[in-house]
């Protein structure tokens, strides 16, 4: 909780830079790099032919790289507080190492989960359902998850920044474990929102941008009691409106 202003500003700048680079890659060159990352159903719909293509090793490398880019674009803004937590609780000479271990833990758990989801989706694709069935199914699941107390509990847990050891192997293991647990709670809260763009036959980038907005908005909300409720994460909109009003009224005051 003892904060270092320089550490925070560096983390914010770095994370935003990574986020911008990731979005640039997505916008400039969505195919072939991003093709498999957010495209579980081919443009012609699901088919048995999806399976052997994906299983090619080269394609798998593209897939993982695409996921990392997608993760950087959609999730990196939510990691500022956690990275700051790790950096400020580490010795100066070990800050880079600690942040690296945290990110390795975080990304690994996402890749493992994405792989599992991919296998499930590919299995479903073997059923050769019309693509709109898959979209409707995922939409219903995503909506129910959004309203569920499990989602709120996951969001709450992602706010809990655990104590970390500072010395030796214990420090390394703690930061790695923190990355894994923090990533797990993020996945639990965001997986449905991130899955949705992946099943769309088109409009992925717009859907990803919308989901990113929702995910960041949700993370700006304070924890709440987990209950079933309709969740409209409009925190970013609220902040924008409030700040615009303040700016507008201060300009009026200056004119007077």
């Amino acid at each position, binding site marked *: 909780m003892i904060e270092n202003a*320089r550490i925070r500003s560096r983390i914010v700048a770095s994370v935003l830079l990574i986020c911008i680079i990731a979005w640039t890659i997505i916008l400039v060159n969505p195919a072939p790099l991003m093709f498999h990352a957010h495209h579980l159903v081919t443009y012609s719909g699901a088919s048995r032919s999806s399976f052997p293509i994906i299983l090619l090793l080269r394609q798998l490398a593209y897939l993982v790289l695409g996921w990392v880019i997608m993760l950087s674009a959609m999730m990196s803004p939510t990691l500022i507080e956690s990275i700051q937590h790790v950096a*400020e609780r580490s010795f100066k000479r070990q800050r880079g190492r600690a942040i690296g271990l945290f990110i390795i833990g975080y990304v690994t758990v996402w890749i493992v989960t994405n792989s599992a989801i991919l296998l499930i989706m590919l299995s479903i694709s073997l059923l050769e359902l019309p693509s709109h069935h898959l979209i409707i199914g995922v939409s219903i699941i995503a909506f129910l998850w959004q309203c569920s107390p499990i989602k709120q509990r996951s969001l709450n847990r992602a706010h809990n920044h655990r104590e970390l050891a500072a010395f030796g192997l214990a420090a390394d293991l703690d930061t790695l474990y923190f990355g894994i647990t923090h990533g797990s709670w993020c996945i639990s809260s965001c997986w449905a929102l991130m899955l949705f763009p992946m099943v769309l036959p088109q409009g992925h980038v717009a859907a990803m941008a919308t989901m990113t907005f929702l995910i960041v908005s949700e993370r700006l909300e304070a924890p709440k009691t*987990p209950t079933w409720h309709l969740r409209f994460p409009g925190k970013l909109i609220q902040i924008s409106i*409030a700040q615009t009003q303040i700016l507008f009224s201060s300009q009026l005051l200056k004119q007077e």
Partner: protein
Amino acid sequence: MAYTRNNAWDNNGTFQNTSLLWYAKGVGIMQTRALDDLNSWWFFAAIHGEYLNETNYPGWGSIPGPPQVPTTPLPSKSIQDSYWNQCQHQSWYFPPWHRGYLLALEAQIRAAVVSLGGPKNWALPYWNYLGPNNQYKMPPAFAQQTLPDGSPNPLFVEARYGPQNDGDIFIPIPPVSEQCQDNTLYTGSNPNTPRPGYGGPNTGFSHSGRLSGNLESNPHNQVHVDVGGQAPQGNVWGLMSDPGLAALDPIFYLHHANIDRMWAEWNAKGNSNPTASNWLNGPAAVGQREFIMPMPDCNAWVYTPAQVNSLSQLNYEYADLSSPAPTQPVAFDATTRRLTRLGLPPTVVAQGDRMDNENSLELVGTHDGTISLKSSGARVQLRLAPEVNQQVISSFAATSEGTLPDQVYLELENVRGAQDAYKLTVNVNGQTAGTVALFGLRRASMEDGQHGGQGLTFVLDVTEIIDNLHMNNALDVDSLDVRITPNNSISEDANISVGRISIYRQSYQ
């Protein structure tokens, strides 16, 4: 009309003090109203914080009376969401939110007093426990079971156990002090102002936060815990000890009137409040809840810190608010004191080097691993990183070159538990680093609470201890001895733990 808030200890703090007598009658009127009445005592207490959904203590249905606290009828959910659980703690909004809260409560009581034929200029009295003579004791009117006319005294509260858990209500001085009044920075730090500053850290809406500001930490938090205390037997603690119960106790508002008076006095000394728009416009400026109070005319008063920034904007004053013009910058005194302690002439440090450098904060050492606190307290060795400790030592040598040595802080982080009614005294190598009160611990430890159950954080300025170690050639060591001692026996159910203890340096170079 300008209202004057007077000292509760006028006329020896008895019902001879008419401010107290009319306060009691006004509280009585508010207590006759239903929980869902926005003008009721119970509704106002819930604005601060409530435990209406809990079955066992501190659930409001299991509070030992008096007062007999109702748990029904509940107002609508939208009313609850707008008004309840609003108090700002561990935040730079702590002083202004409570100022607005007091104004609203005072208006309610005044309306009740006037309806009873009382004075139209009635104002809330304050309890200056740091004042001379017997003022460290609770005004006697609060301990009377009946009013002078023989009717029950609404100021009397059963669950008020005191610092020794024996029902004797007083404020131990020290450790309670007005040292924060020497601070010169609202948020941040400088040689006179330890982190996180007089008014508190920069936060959003913070019903339950992590790190208290210096005014909030001492005296505010300590007085809460000292008055509330813990029942001699069982797991019941005093109302004042817990933010979800505190505003049920009428002494709460006199305590906060004194905190408000101290803030006004601090401003009168020439210290400034924040000018950042996020502070002036309140948490609504970042899309969060607004500060809102019910007023006697049934209208809602929505306010921002900018509207309660100074007493000159408002319609009340304090009877004995002193505003001495500073004869010289206080920072000069603090720096001089430190240089004197180090055996150096005051002229060695230039004025421009006296502000701290928040960017230079760096971890020096830790005790890794969670400590479970029992009645006997805890003692640990805080391991130092040799190369960083050498930088602290080197900073003393740099003093002769015109800069102050490092400022050093001890941090107790992720302090969690189920009961708030404890104070912990922290010693470093046999020297007292400070005393902290665990007010707000229970809420800060809830996994679905506002900060996800991270618990409280305490930061103690241990620079003087480090200076003394340096002067005794005892600073070039691998570890520091840290001892934590609770003020009273800790209940088994309290489950108090400290996640990590750390030491940080902050350089002026």
